[in-house]
């Protein structure tokens, strides 16, 4: 009961002394093992967090996810055009390609800097199909026929609008809508449908999937 009545400081000091006397402090070998273990665990944690906190957060309403089959895939460009066009995957890849490095911004607040896209400029595709004078809008359809979005023709013909089929030097991974997605780097990412399968020129605006749910039609990024 002596211990109970002593002051905290004396009690703690006594504990420490007793611990040392009983040989209960960590031996050097165990201390180094603990240190090494903590260092490895810390390093692993930082590595894991680094790959999780930066980078892409995947969004898709196409469920089940469309499956890309290189043989069956067709990109149809039609609507109010003089020369409708259907491209196979190989024909899409054979069109004059451009490379673009741009920042990707999601409306949710995350972004990915310096993404390298390879693909075909929408200007190139538009020149091939020659829109008729009434065509003022372009709708982009996903393979699963759930998601779509649109741009005005003027927006679609900005020089950095791409039908992208490679990202950072590799074919689009399944999360990013292979074989091709629309890239409109001046607007939030929801303006760029993935699993792009149809480009339709229209005389009236076709409101997109998220715009039907209240999101902005012109999703310009204001820096």
């Amino acid at each position, binding site marked *: 009961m002596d211990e109970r009545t002593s002051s905290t400081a004396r*009690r*703690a000091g006594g504990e*420490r002394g007793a611990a040392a006397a*009983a040989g209960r402090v*960590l031996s050097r070998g165990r201390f180094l093992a*603990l240190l090494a273990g903590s260092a490895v665990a810390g390093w692993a944690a930082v590595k894991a*967090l680094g790959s999780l906190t930066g980078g892409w957060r995947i*969004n898709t309403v196409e469920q089940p996810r469309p499956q890309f089959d290189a043989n069956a895939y067709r990109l149809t460009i039609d609507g109010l055009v003089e020369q409708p066009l259907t491209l196979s995957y190989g024909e899409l890849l054979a069109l004059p390609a451009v490379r673009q490095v741009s920042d990707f911004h999601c409306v949710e607040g995350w972004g990915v800097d310096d993404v390298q896209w390879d693909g075909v400029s929408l200007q190139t595709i538009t020149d091939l199909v020659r829109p008729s004078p009434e065509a003022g809008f372009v709708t982009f359809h996903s393979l699963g026929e759930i998601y779509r979005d649109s741009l005005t023709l003027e927006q679609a013909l900005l020089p950095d609008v791409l039908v992208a089929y490679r990202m950072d030097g590799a074919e689009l991974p399944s999360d990013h809508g292979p074989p091709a997605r629309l890239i409109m780097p001046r607007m939030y990412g929801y303006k760029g449908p993935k699993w792009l399968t149809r480009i339709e020129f229209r005389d009236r605006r076709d409101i997109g999937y998220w715009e039907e749910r209240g999101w902005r039609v012109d999703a310009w990024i204001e820096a």
Partner: protein
Amino acid sequence: MDRGLTTSAAQDFIERFESPSRRIHWTLGILYVLLLLSGVTNFWPEAKALQFADVRVFAWLHVVLGWAFVAGLAAVLGPLLAPTPAGHALRADLGELTRAGLDDYLWLQHLALRAMRAPSTPPRAGKFNAGQKLNALASLTLSLGLAASGAVLGVNYMTKSVFGVGFVESVFPWHTALGLIAIPPLVAHLYLALLHPGTRESLRGMLLGRVRRDWAREHHPAWVDAVERAEGRED
């Protein structure tokens, strides 16, 4: 305290948390768990896409609960500053939780030794041991960090005209990192409070305000001594 009216059964318990401490713990704690659960759906596209009435369920829930959490944190200032006995108890708990001493170091060393199966006896813990203090400090730090970064993202969810896209995108990874860091201590806390036989008794303290005296004497002997001295019951 009118000792003449207390039954022997009542004397087997000891008051641990007054109602403001409990109310704050449960209000913020339940929101905290729901926020982490709705937050991790950000890594699960199929869950993220779930909609009700054209609104994404988890994103919407996360933002609404997040604002409730920010409001809850701000509302803590009321009881914390109140010149009442309950406010005093709350300030005392917070003071105990944020004060560390040699005993806390010894308690952690005891934990390390026991983890390596070395013989060790714990120091006599006060109302809170070092593990509880670390949990409280981690929760407080993470809550404030998550609330501040989350407020930026919450504003961005509602309007793009307040914060620039570059600022928002620099805050986003921090919010994610803090949220992920918050998971292991929360899992440990839930395990110790709900499942681990030796520590489960503490749940009664947070639910009803009191714990078994014999349990308290085993786990928080210095605190029981102090309480009994205050009660004039020192042996």
